[in-house]
């Protein structure tokens, strides 16, 4: 337990217990301080990457259960590094934005928030499939409660739908994990990859196909990939602001992370053979999500559908199977986390003032609340992929990657970029411009310092990630290069008679 990663992982859990044990009055403060401490500590995780370059750092590998052998094996590489930091960054921000919003069962709320953080970090650092699955499911419970207790009118439907949808996917993944274990005798990711690399562990085509499918299905639901996305709008609309933020910013990334971490390197052949229809679904999702977002009268729903669209890019990038694609996809995960997280946060600010999520109830907000408007517009612009802001980088890389494989993919996916401007700006216009009603003016205070503190870090990151990509991208790149190399060597090894279709990735 001496290394930093263990502490970053353990502190939220300790916090969870502490918040339950401590009196209600201090719950907020304790959570805020603790999550800030975790955030600061998590920044320290970058150190070995700076000093020694890419690799698996902070490895802890101790046995947990003897039979079947399950190990507490965690480590951090360039792929998970920023996702962990994203989680630790957003948790204190979520405490801030819930300061006034959450006024019932404050203690439970913060406890669940910390439990969620614990689960999320765990998902990103687990190097043992079983451990990964455990954390994967652990995330489910706090989010279920966050939506169900503090959500809006249809929260129960949304919470249950969220839980069941995810559960349906993850049980299949569990089957695949057990199958892998029965076949390989280990749950350890590093071991598994190693065995596959050395040809000690091989699958028949059918085996690989079904295993891939089982993992893919679980991840695709989480992403969510069209047509498995319908839980998302409901969950987002009904969740409290902090829930939406965590859900959009980090939880959806569990799915895409899983695709990169597991689906691509472990089942390279199947991944390539199935790339066509997966990419088709991703592209349908991009356009479909954008079109449906275009006509949403409800802000949160609009942002939720925009997530469907944005995450289509991530999937497209992953299944392009090249460096730019994976880099773009991972970068886009972070981008989406920052900008959509911020969007939900800002929509939450509006809701706190006006108690409505219907765009029609707004109009002219820019007059009484210029700072809020500015923040919203900047975030919107990031979201529509304006260069110099973060999303552009990810989308650009993904589209470039897909162009290297099949230019038609790019053509259709890029239509989504056009549409994104449509729905986002339309919402901005209807919400912020025009004449404000007297009633609206009365309710619409501008951002207060607490809200500024919550949003400014994200705005800053949007710009930074758009301009100085070299702060983040090299680590991601190196990790992806390794995954790509693992995935490629896997294909070469197994493809005794090279399948021309699989070879060129189409």
């Amino acid at each position: 337990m001496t290394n930093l990663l263990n502490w970053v992982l353990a502190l939220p859990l300790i916090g969870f217990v502490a918040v339950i044990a401590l009196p209600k009055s201090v719950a907020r403060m304790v959570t805020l301080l603790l999550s800030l401490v975790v955030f600061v500590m998590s920044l320290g995780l970058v150190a070995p990457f700076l000093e020694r370059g890419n690799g698996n750092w902070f490895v802890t590998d101790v046995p947990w259960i003897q039979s079947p052998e399950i190990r507490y094996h965690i480590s951090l590489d360039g792929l998970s590094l920023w996702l962990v930091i994203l989680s630790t960054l957003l948790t204190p921000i979520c405490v801030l934005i819930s300061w006034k919003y959450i006024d019932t069962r404050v203690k439970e709320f913060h406890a669940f928030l910390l439990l969620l953080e614990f689960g999320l970090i765990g998902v990103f650092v687990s190097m043992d499939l079983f451990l990964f699955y455990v954390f994967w499911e652990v995330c489910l419970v706090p989010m279920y409660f966050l939506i169900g207790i503090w959500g809006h009118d249809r929260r129960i439907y949304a919470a249950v739908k969220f839980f069941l949808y995810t559960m349906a996917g993850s049980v299949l993944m569990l089957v695949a994990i057990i199958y892998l274990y029965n076949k390989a005798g280990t749950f350890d990711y590093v071991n598994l990859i190693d065995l596959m690399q050395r040809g000690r562990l091989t699958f028949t085509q059918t085996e690989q196909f079904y295993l891939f499918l089982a993992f893919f299905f679980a991840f695709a639901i989480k992403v969510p990939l069209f047509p498995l996305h319908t839980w998302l709008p409901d969950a987002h609309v009904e969740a409290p602001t902090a829930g939406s933020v965590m859900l959009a910013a980090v939880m959806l990334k569990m799915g895409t992370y899983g695709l990169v971490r597991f689906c691509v390197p472990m089942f390279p052949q199947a991944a390539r053979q199935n790339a066509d229809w997966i990419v088709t679904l991703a592209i349908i999702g991009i356009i479909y999500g954008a079109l449906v977002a275009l006509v949403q009268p409800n802000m949160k729903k609009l942002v939720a559908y925009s997530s469907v669209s944005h995450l289509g890019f991530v999937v497209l990038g992953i299944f392009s199977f090249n460096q730019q694609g994976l880099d773009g996809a991972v970068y886009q995960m972070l981008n989406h986390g920052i900008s959509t997280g911020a969007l939900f946060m800002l929509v939450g600010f509006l809701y706190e003032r006006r108690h409505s999520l219907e765009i029609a109830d707004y109009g002219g907000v820019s007059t009484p609340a210029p700072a809020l408007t500015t923040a919203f517009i900047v975030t919107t612009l990031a979201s529509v992929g304006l260069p110099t802001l973060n999303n552009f980088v990810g989308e650009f890389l993904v589209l470039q990657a897909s162009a290297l494989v099949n230019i038609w993919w790019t053509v259709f996916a890029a239509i989504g970029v056009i549409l994104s401007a449509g729905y986002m700006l339309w919402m901005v216009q209807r919400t912020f411009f025009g004449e404000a009603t007297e009633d609206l003016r009365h309710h619409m205070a501008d951002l207060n310092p607490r809200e500024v503190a919550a949003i400014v870090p994200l705005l800053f990151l949007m710009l930074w990630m758009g301009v100085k990509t070299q702060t983040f991208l090299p680590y991601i790149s190196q990790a992806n290069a390794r995954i790509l190399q693992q995935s490629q060597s896997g294909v070469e090894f197994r493809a005794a008679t090279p399948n021309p279709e699989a070879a060129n990735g189409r």
Partner: protein
Amino acid sequence: MEHASQQLWLIPLLPLLGFLINGLFGRRFPNLLVGLIAVGTVFGSFLWVVKSLQALGALEHAHVEHYYTWLESGNLNIGVDLMIDRLTAVMLLVVTGIGTLIHIYATGYMSHEGGFYRFFAYLNLFMFFMLTLVLGANYLMVFVGWEGVGLCSYLLIGFYTLKKSAGDAAKKAFIVNRIGDFGFTLAMFLMFVHFGSFDFKTVFDKVAPMAVEQTAGPLTWIALLLFVGAAGKSAQIPLYVWLPDAMEGPTPVSALIHAATMVTAGVYMVARSSVIFLRAPEAMDVVAVVGLATAVMAATIGLAQNDIKKVFAYSTVSQLGYMFLACGVGAFSAGIYHVVTHAFFKALLFLGAGSVIHALEGEQDMRHMGGLMSKIPITFAVLACAWVAIAGVPPFAGFYSKDEILLAAHHHHPWMYWVGVATAAMTAFYVSRAMFMTFFGKYRGHHHPHESPFVMWGPLAVLAVLSLAGGWYFKIPHFLEPLFPLAEGAHDETLVYISVAAGAAGIGLAWLFYVASPALPDSIANSLGGLYKLVYNKYFVDEAYNAAIVNPLVNGSRSLLWRVMDAGVIDGAVNGVGSLSRSIGGFVRLFQSGNIRSYAAWVTLGCVAVLVALGMAGGR
């Protein structure tokens, strides 16, 4: 790099600084300070441009400066690189020079408006992106500027946030530009696929040895897609619809962004990519035809507009069409030449119009003007300079560049020349019409016109001088010769006379209609009936777009995708699984009748089944 670093980054950065200062703290500053910062930073850029150009001398080769790596992934490497060559130099001078003048003008024009600081912050931000666009040494940097100016255009068109029409126009501009950018980005992706780089130098070096494509190949596709981008930004058919609406923005914005600088970015980009275009003749033809068609169509619409800014807006579209015609026929330098002269006279026209509007406290409808010559004489004087320049009266600015273009067109295809001449006549007509309706005859409005302050007409005077002498003084085509070799061919004097005569005819006709016998236009309009209506209503293009694209998209998304597909089919399936499960449950529960004998019957049946399966199976 033969030359030492010129710190080119300072050129865009100064306006950015202005943006940051005004944007963050401007609200607390007095207007004067805000204005000083805004104008000062842009003027600083201008000075730095001049200084750099002096230091760089003749600019025989491009001067490139690399600052840091922006994006690196696999073999994709994009640097934050800036570059100056002769083309850039021209554009830089136009942008910073005219930019400075318009900034000065705006301090006067906007002095009574709310959000003064915000306006200048946006304007400075625009300068930053525009300069990035011009200075960028790879396509991606250009694209950054490209999108950035689009953003600023969006913000400035929608500057009057309380006006719904302004918001709509802004959104429209952004989205239509996005459609163009779609082409631009695809072109870039293809470029990387084929050449593995976005750097101008690398790409062009790889393209240069390639043969001219006789049938559509990658170069043609890249060129066409680039042109789609250019058509979006430079308002060409079919993406021109946003520019007339963009006049919702404050007039200095119209002058700077929607006349002098941003809208010419497309021309700049096509000229910049001339190496590619020259090897894709089919794409060149498309460019030429689209340019010409735009020129004609916009000119006809301009004939019948009553809003003074709309007239000039359609004029801008038309003139941009000319520039593309030039590029399309291979006369890139003529195109850039026209960019420069057009920047002079169109900025002047808009600013002058702004001065008129300012004088009339916001009135834009020409039917409510008239007879202003005596009331605002300075404005009239400067506008008259622009008038002669755009009408192609020799030896003023417009004459030179238009002449170059028409000659090149004739060289390419004579019919293009004749259409161009007709357009020139129309151009002369509608500008003259605007002038006559505004300044001649009797005053038809009810405001009390007053002349603009010096900060406003001062810049106008400078532009007036440039409009008059700019064409003759700046021999752009010669300056650009290292980049764009001049087309050989005899300089046919007759063609020049014909075009000048056409211009003169246009002016004369306008005089006849609007000064000599003002009743004539109405009767002609009546006699033309449907045709007039068509032109007056801009060929119903907006309506057609709405009916053919926007409405089907929105309604289809709402009713088909959202309500039917998402809520109905997909969620229906999901909920269907739920209700199916419940019905299965309900069915299963039916067996639980509560009756002991029926339970026993089930046990017995189960027993028989197991017996059959196990006992009998084993008996075989």
